[in-house]
């Protein structure tokens, strides 16, 4: 019997002997990794939507009519390290915009037609990152030649905190669930070792190598992690495919599309994570187990 064959058959025999415990471990890994997978997808959807929204966020600085050298101010602001882009909206363009926005409001249109000069020119600034929004706005307010700064303030801040919060949350969840999966696999291997303690004792008495005693258990843990991970990915992808249309219909404002590359990459990570969880879990169990230690 080749060594690999031995490891396989021992691991499968062990798993067959403790079918219920093994099922428990596989399900635990499955549920944990499924939730991790779901959280990763949810986080990706949220952050890609937030990125889209934040792309549309601008700080608008209305310029005073007295300002002479607009171009200099524009290039000066463009040099700020947290500014991605500065666009100049001239008085004429601003008037056109106003006419379009208020095209149903005759009173306002009349007012504009009477004296368009009250509509100021402005600079539209795109921040490099949403986080920089507040800083840019307050610096603009202190800049001479700028009359007024319009900011979406609270809305932006909420977007930022939603995005960051999701990131932290999904990482925390992944860590907690990963730890739970490790503990459950460790426990399963512990029970498998305990169930075979007599056999292990005799193996060691007659001089079986440590490798010979341990590897089947290590392999068992990795196999359980692998099966759990594959299940999690399969069910996660299946649920995403099947539920996509219905859920998209419920939340039309949020784009639920996730790139296939992202899905594939995360799926591979999840499966590998499952295998690692299994290996770590069984290693922990083997290193504390008194029947295994010499």
């Amino acid at each position, binding site marked *: *019997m080749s060594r690999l064959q031995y490891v396989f058959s021992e691991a499968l025999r062990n798993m067959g002997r403790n079918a219920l415990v093994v099922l428990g471990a596989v399900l635990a890994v499955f549920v944990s990794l499924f939730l991790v997978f779901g959280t990763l997808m949810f986080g990706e959807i949220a952050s890609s939507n937030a990125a889209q929204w934040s792309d549309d966020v601008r700080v608008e600085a209305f310029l005073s009519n007295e300002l002479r050298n607009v171009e200099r101010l524009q290039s000066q602001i463009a040099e700020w390290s947290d500014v991605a882009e500065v666009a100049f909206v001239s008085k004429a363009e601003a008037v056109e915009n106003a006419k379009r926005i208020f095209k149903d409001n005759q009173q306002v249109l009349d007012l504009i037609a009477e004296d368009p000069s009250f509509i100021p020119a402005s600079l539209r600034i795109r921040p490099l990152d949403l986080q920089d929004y507040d800083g840019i706005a307050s610096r603009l307010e202190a800049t001479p030649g700028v009359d007024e700064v319009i900011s979406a303030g609270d809305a932006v801040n909420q977007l930022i905190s939603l995005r960051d919060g999701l990131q932290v949350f999904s990482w925390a969840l992944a860590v907690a669930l990963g730890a739970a999966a490790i503990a459950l696999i460790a426990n399963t291997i512990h029970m498998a070792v305990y169930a075979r303690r*007599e*056999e292990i*004792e*005799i*193996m*060691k*008495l*007659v*001089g*079986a*190598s*440590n490798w*010979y005693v341990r590897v089947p258990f290590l392999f068992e843990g990795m196999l359980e992690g692998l099966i759990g991970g594959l299940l999690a990915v399969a069910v996660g992808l299946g649920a995403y495919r099947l539920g996509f249309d219905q859920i998209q219909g419920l939340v039309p404002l949020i784009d639920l599309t996730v790139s296939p590359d992202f899905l594939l990459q995360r799926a591979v990570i999840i499966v590998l994570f499952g295998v690692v969880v299994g290996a770590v879990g069984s290693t922990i169990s083997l290193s504390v187990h008194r029947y295994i230690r*010499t």
Partner: protein
Amino acid sequence: MIRLENVTKVYDGGVVALKDVSIDVAKGEFVFLVGPSGSGKSTLIRLMMREERPTNGDIWIAGKPAAKMPSWKVPHLRRSIGTVFQDFKLLPNKTVFENVAYALEVTGRPRHLVRDQVPQVLKLVGLSAKSDRYPKQLSGGEQQRVSVARAFVNRPLILLADEPTGNLDPATSVGIMRILDRINRTGTTVVMATHDHAIVDAMQRRVIQLERGRIVRDQSRGAYEHRAPAETTATPAVPPSAEAEPSVAERELAAAEAELAELPTEEDYAETIADDDETIADDDSGQAAS
């Protein structure tokens, strides 16, 4: 073969099991360890098989430093030691044959060696006819014989037995002792911890008596209790089998006895393992010739 130098063993919690014990056992000796419970017999056995490490002192087993060797080398040491315990330690879900074969399989011996050696050893312990039985279907004495067969199937240099007859009635114990005696005669060093006065008195072998972790007597042809030398010589060296009724197994044992003399010594055996089928074929022809 076995050497302990000033060995002290203190267990966690401060229990002193052995105190400054020095023993030298030559190759091929048969040694009884006697003494009351808690005197350190079992600890001594556990130190010799490197189940425990001494707190102080040095231990050499078959030329290897058992006390100081790293744990990854222990499996190799164990292959030169056979062990027999009071509770047999057989696997209930394996047959007699499988239990004995297990010792060869887990150390990675080739299958043809298993097929060759296991029946031979089962014959030696008189269990050829029961090789397909499960331990549950055997008597205590038979189970212990399986356990001895498993300990010996590797042809170890040393056989350690911790109260091997502790769970057996006197007649059955005699059968076990005859097997151990035969194994000893093949050149295997045997160390046996026991409480059994009758056995020790009848065998007339070296006796090391322990009391509260110290050696109080080391006598080359001793009895369980210390006696004056004159008295000792007066004790007839009765073969243990004299008291036992010859059963079928006993007769098989006797038949196997002749064969045992022809069993390969451990040196031959080492060659057998190292080489392949051919060596075994040679071995067989050699046996037939002798």
